[in-house]
């Protein structure tokens, strides 16, 4: 069975969501710039959002209907809003860190090390 010739289904979207999630996790682990870590978080949230939209989609399963119904889209909307809030707070923390330490390297944020 050729996955490229099939009509687009939920599992196609799950593959895209998995790739976005994994790149976000690797981005969070690898980047030393605090804003790079923030971009990794955005990628992770976006990958989860792709999954929610796929589960809530009314068209992706043909006449079988959606799995989550409207819940998937509402959760995706809430994730977008909370990502905006999270980005605002994280940016404020980063700017504060930059003002106090004159760097955005997260490896230098070791003031609390015992």
């Amino acid at each position, binding site marked *: 069975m050729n*996955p*490229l010739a099939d*009509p*687009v*289904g*939920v*599992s*196609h*979207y*799950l*593959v*895209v969501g*998995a790739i*976005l*999630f*994994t790149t976000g996790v*690797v981005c969070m*682990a*690898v980047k*030393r710039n605090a*804003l790079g870590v*923030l971009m990794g978080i*955005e*990628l992770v949230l*976006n990958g989860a*959002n*792709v999954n929610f*939209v*796929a589960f*809530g*989609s*009314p*068209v*992706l*399963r*043909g006449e079988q*209907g*959606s799995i*989550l*119904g*409207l819940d998937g*889209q509402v959760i995706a909307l*809430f994730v*977008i809003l909370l*990502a*905006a*809030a*999270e*980005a*605002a*707070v994280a*940016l*404020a923390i*980063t*700017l*504060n860190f*930059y003002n106090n330490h004159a*760097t*955005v*390297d997260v490896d230098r944020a070791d003031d609390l090390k015992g």
Partner: protein
Amino acid sequence: MNLSLPLLAAINWHGFFFLLFAALACSLAVAVVLAENVVRMAFYLVLSLGATAGLFFLAGAEFIGAMQLMIYVGGTLVLLVFGVMLTAQAPFVSIRTPVGDRVLAGLVGFSLLAVLLLAAVTSPVWRGGGADPTARATEPMATPLGMALVGVRVDAAPTGSEDSQAAGVRSGYLLPFEIVSVHLLVVLVGAAYLARAKRRRGLPARPTVRMGGAP
């Protein structure tokens, strides 16, 4: 032209645009990881999230796609780009990571990706069906979404759930909507408080002016 028309009709356009947007989103997300320059990372992230909005449109969630473009790409990432510009001093534009850390993160990432792909592909519930490429556009989702956010459900229950058998009143999302809105307000007030301009401790912001003293 006569030759190309049956060829055009034979193409599964839904699948074609899905593959286009999926390839754009995934390759640009990988580019975010591989890029060294933080400004380029922000640019690739903008394009990746925009391509994801295209995927949302293709899944029949056009309101979510529009919100993705307006809030995420238009708001959150502009905020992020401002952060990049405010902190983009020359030594911080590209901070190198040690090679050993990169290899380790790549190994962890590939194993996580293998697990996720296995789970996504093997489940028969998620493989079944598929979008009908000849189907017309479905009814817009903005009205059921908006009515559900103010507490009234006008959409059909998902097939197979117990809600579809029980003809009772289904709850909307009024309380989560209020919680999220108050949460957003509190978070933005807190962010404005955290990021306010203040003098750095220890050194005064500007030299004090002495009245009538010797220079």
